């Protein structure tokens, strides 16, 4: 298979890996400098935001493959393969979560507050225990899904590497035939979807909503996982566009593929905005101070109100009007720029939600060069993970028609 060898060679190419590594080092450097400075909590804030965003992209990305398999979609084969490469970030994400423990004193405003009974839930040991277990469950289910999905599509003639040999051995021991494999794949897929909803809700409640421990919104959990799917789709479009556009990589999608995933992205843009509005209208209308203080601080008082409007415009207004047009969805260059803008917007949205709680009485937005560098560092991590994965499993880049997994 000369074409796939070619892909492997390209992906292993030194310049790309070096670029990603240097991004990671820059990010790490900025983070450490921030920690050693006068405001280590700013560094941890940036770390948390990036952890949440990039983990969401990975979790949402895999969700695409799982959902397409569960509904037996026929158009999504090559895109599902790409989506599965995001699982490479899962172990990294888990490690990054554990590192969050080191910043616990700087991250959680409720540590020294009177929680009126909520301490049973909001305390460091329980929070970290349940979130670690939750992420472990979610990521394990993702890998189990992948384990079975790959049995059906990997090319056994490629026999290099320890991971592949390990996989082949496991398969030979545990998987008898295609039907059982497919069945188990569906089961793990459904479990992943359930875990996605539950665990991402939990993460949303624990790491974002609890930053203001006296505020609550029942929909916040669902809002978190809808946001994750939105950015996951954005990440997938960027990945697919990049691979499609690179002349050295042998991966070409049809315009109808881009159109379909563009439509799905548009749909989730609407769903995300809807979930945002639904919370807003209930809180606005009830006008109960317990709930409105949170919203007023973030949408009506400076410095956050301008950020809120900016996010609304680049994450909803702009994509809505642009994506109404059919042709634009089929242009990968444009779509990747749009999706990048949206992902940055959602990064800012995380800042909007967490920032006021971590920087009370601030007069300026807690946003600076360090945040940008740490963002680049995390993007380097994601790029490395995906590259390594595609390098290891180059069959994912094979585009065949009528692939039914």
């Amino acid at each position, binding site marked *: 298979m000369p074409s796939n060898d070619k892909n492997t060679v390209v992906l292993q190419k030194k310049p790309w890996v070096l670029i990603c590594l240097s991004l990671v080092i820059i990010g790490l450097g900025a983070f450490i400098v921030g920690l050693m400075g006068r405001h280590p909590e700013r560094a941890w804030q940036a770390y948390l935001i990036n952890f949440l965003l990039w983990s969401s992209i990975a979790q949402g990305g895999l969700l695409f493959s799982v959902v397409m398999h569960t509904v037996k979609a026929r158009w999504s084969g090559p895109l599902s393969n790409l989506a599965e490469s995001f699982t490479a970030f899962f172990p990294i994400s888990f490690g990054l979560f554990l590192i969050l423990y080191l910043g616990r004193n700087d991250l959680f405003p409720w540590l020294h507050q009177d929680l009126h009974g909520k301490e049973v839930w909001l305390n460091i040991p329980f929070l970290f225990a349940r979130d670690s277990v939750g992420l472990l469950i979610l990521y394990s289910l993702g890998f189990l899904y992948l384990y079975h999905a790959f049995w059906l599509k990997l090319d056994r003639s490629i026999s290099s590497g320890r991971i592949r040999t390990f996989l082949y051995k496991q398969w030979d021991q545990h998987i008898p035939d295609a039907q059982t494999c497919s069945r188990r794949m569906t089961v793990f897929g459904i479990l992943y979807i359930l875990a996605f909803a539950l665990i991402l809700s939990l993460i949303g409640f624990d790491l974002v909503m609890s930053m203001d421990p006296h505020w609550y919104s029942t929909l916040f959990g669902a809002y978190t996982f809808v946001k994750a799917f939105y950015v996951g789709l954005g990440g997938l479009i960027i990945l697919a566009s990049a691979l499609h556009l690179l002349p050295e990589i042998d991966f070409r999608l049809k315009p109808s593929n881009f159109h379909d995933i563009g439509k799905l992205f548009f749909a989730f843009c609407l769903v995300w905005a809807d979930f945002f*509005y639904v919370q807003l*209208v209930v809180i606005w*209308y009830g006008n109960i101070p317990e709930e409105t203080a949170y919203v007023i601080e973030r949408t009506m008082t400076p410095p956050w109100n301008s950020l809120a409007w900016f996010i609304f415009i680049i994450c909803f207004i702009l994509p809505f009007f642009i994506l109404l047009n059919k042709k634009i969805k089929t242009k990968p260059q444009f779509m990747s720029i749009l999706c990048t803008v949206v992902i940055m917007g959602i990064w800012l949205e995380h800042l909007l939600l967490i920032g006021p709680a971590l920087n009370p009485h601030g007069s300026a937005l807690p946003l600076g060069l360090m945040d940008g560098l740490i963002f680049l560092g995390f993007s380097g991590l994601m790029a490395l993970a995906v590259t390594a994965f595609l390098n290891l499993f180059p069959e994912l880049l094979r585009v065949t028609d009528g692939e039914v997994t």
Partner: protein
Amino acid sequence: MGTEYRVMGLFTDENRAVSAIEAIKDSPWSLRRVHSPVPSHKISDALDLKKSKIGYFTLAGGITGFFAGFLLAVFTASQWHLIVSGKPIIALVPFFIVGFEFTILFAIFGNVVGLIHQMQLPEFTGLEEYDPRCSGEHFGILAACKADELERLKAFFQNRGGEINIFSKKQEHQ
């Protein structure tokens, strides 16, 4: 001048219908209409049809509706400056809902007006040159020819596996 005949070739197989359409384009006869029981991509590709302009009607309706809904809510609220439940008199958050519903309603109205206008329905004269089998399982291709070419046109369709229905249409004297 003479009688012009409209001959409809009826095919039960979509591919044969498409090949007949392709062949008619190269023939001296004019293709009037193609009837089908289902919308067919192959036929619309063969006929090289342009995209429908209905979308413009829908969009116009939607934009009108958005502003109509908002304006209705703003107008009714500003008639009496009553503060209810501490809400502002002109409140964008709830008025957005009214605007949204009116957007959809008027977009649908635009869509319907567009359909009526573009499809030109209701229109019953089309039924005169129509074979009821076209709504069942047949694809009907209506071609026009002069009286002397009638037999050749009939053979053209029959050779491709189609059945025939003939409608005659008298041409006006000059």
